[in-house]
């Protein structure tokens, strides 16, 4: 049977590039292909475009100056640059780094890597909503700590972390705070100065710019070590000829995200809340993952008892709906999401999770379509499951 309707609710995995961002980047591939390091007119044109994009990204997060933005190849590089860059630069001062148990793998793995190089890494616990345990941060933070790295908002369960409080605690000691704002920047207002953040990761594709571009905000005056050594671009922190088309489109995407943030935030929040209500209300043994209110506007992570995420994902796919799963069975590692486990879920509960991530193109009609599909999908799978209690079998 041919699928007549397609609904994408997996925007967290990838977003389309805003046509205005595509438009902005095209000249820098066709005609204005100069290298910003050149002194001639073509080079200076590229340099100007680079500076302009830098300003736009800086404005999005209210950086004190455009020069505090370092362009990278994406969030993974930015997180690596921040963590290894601080750890290595300040290793004479201390070798302890602190992060949380709900970080993206591009924070988890650099931290783990550093433990093989003589550093100590601590992964702080979170509560059942995925919010950081501030008490354990206070306890772990000491004079040997050079870096604390905490996600702004979680990409799997949507929970927004108390960054302002974290920042205050971190700065009672001589440590820097890095915030991974990959999935949050461009969606919710972020002010690095008001928050007191020292380094912050931003991703282009997560705000409808192209993939393969990102940025790291490094507060004015903080020195870190580069990952790449070469021609000294990006203040020596990211050698290699700048990806001008990508950076220009990223800048445009950041500008649009800032201008249209309020509209998108309101629209998505309404859709999110309707989806949560429509998923949870009709079915027993159905739960929301993450914080009920302090969460991203685009994330809806739900778990259904007695059934497994991939079979839900496949059932939705057969109806034209794309989602992602928190289950091991849809991943390469065969382990359920470490984020879900960190919130205290048992393995079998984590296996029953699916994540809907909304995008600008989603409508209320899409949301109602998905709400309408779920009961029969869930009931069918529950009927097949040996874990389902007898009273649920109709």
């Amino acid at each position, binding site marked *: 049977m041919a699928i007549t309707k397609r609904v994408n609710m997996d925007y967290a995995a990838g977003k389309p590039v805003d046509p205005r961002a595509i438009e902005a980047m095209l000249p820098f591939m066709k005609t204005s292909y100069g290298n910003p390091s050149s002194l001639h007119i073509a080079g200076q044109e590229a340099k100007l475009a680079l500076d302009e994009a830098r300003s736009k990204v800086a404005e999005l997060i209210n950086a004190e100056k455009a020069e505090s933005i370092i362009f990278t190849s994406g969030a993974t590089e930015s997180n690596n640059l921040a963590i290894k860059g601080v750890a290595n630069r300040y290793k004479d001062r201390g070798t302890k780094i602190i992060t949380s148990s709900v970080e993206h793998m591009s924070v988890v793995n650099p931290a783990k890597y550093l433990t093989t190089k003589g550093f100590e890494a601590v992964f702080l616990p979170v509560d059942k909503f995925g919010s950081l345990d501030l008490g354990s941060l206070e306890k772990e933070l000491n004079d040997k700590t050079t870096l604390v790295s905490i996600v702004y908002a979680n990409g799997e369960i949507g929970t927004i972390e108390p960054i302002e409080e974290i920042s205050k605690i971190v700065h009672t000691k001589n440590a820097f705070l890095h915030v991974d704002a990959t999935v949050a920047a461009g969606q919710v207002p972020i002010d690095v100065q008001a928050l007191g953040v020292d380094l912050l990761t931003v991703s282009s594709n997560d705000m409808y710019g192209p993939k393969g571009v990102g940025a790291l905000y490094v507060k004015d005056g903080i020195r870190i070590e580069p990952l790449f050594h070469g021609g000294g671009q990006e203040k020596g922190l990211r050698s290699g000829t700048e990806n001008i088309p990508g950076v220009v489109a990223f800048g445009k995407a950041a500008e649009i995200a800032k201008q249209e943030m309020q509209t998108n935030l309101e629209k998505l929040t309404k859709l999110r809340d309707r989806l949560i209500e429509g998923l949870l209300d009709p079915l027993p043994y159905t739960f929301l993952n993450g914080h009920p209110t302090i969460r991203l506007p685009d994330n809806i992570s739900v778990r259904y008892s*007695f*059934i*497994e*995420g*991939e*079979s839900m994902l*496949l059932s939705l796919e*057969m109806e034209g709906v794309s989602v992602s799963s928190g*289950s*091991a*069975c*849809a991943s*390469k590692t*065969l382990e*359920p999401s470490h984020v879900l486990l960190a919130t205290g879920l*048992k*393995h*079998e509960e984590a*296996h029953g999770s699916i994540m809907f991530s909304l995008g600008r193109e989603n409508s209320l009609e899409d949301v109602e379509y998905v709400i309408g599909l779920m009961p029969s999908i869930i009931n069918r799978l529950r*009927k*097949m*499951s*040996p*874990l389902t209690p007898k009273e649920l079998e109709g």
Partner: protein
Amino acid sequence: MYSDKVMEHFKNPKNTGEISDADGVGTVGNPVCGDLMTMYIKVKDERITDIKFKTFGCGAAIATSSMTTDMAKGKTLEEAMKITRADVATSLGGLPPVKMHCSNLAADALHAAIKDYYKKQGVPEVKK
């Protein structure tokens, strides 16, 4: 990622449910790992006359359960004991490599149900 055959069995699985007066019941897997299946068999004259399953798991777990029941139905217990995980995967047009071990447990569940039948009948050792 899955073959058409797997998707067909996932969409319309055969022989789902329980047999309340089953002659043999076999459960394998663990919900912690994301896969748990129970197989129920009815046996007459050493032959599987009816078979049903209940499965908690991914698409591959449900499809292999369905395929296994299809393959075992009507077979003698001796023939059914010879059905392997590989046979089930082959009949489904193959499984993704990552699924071969974790979700391809249905043949084991079938064998467990047959062993349970023998045990209930007082047969000490299963003949291979």
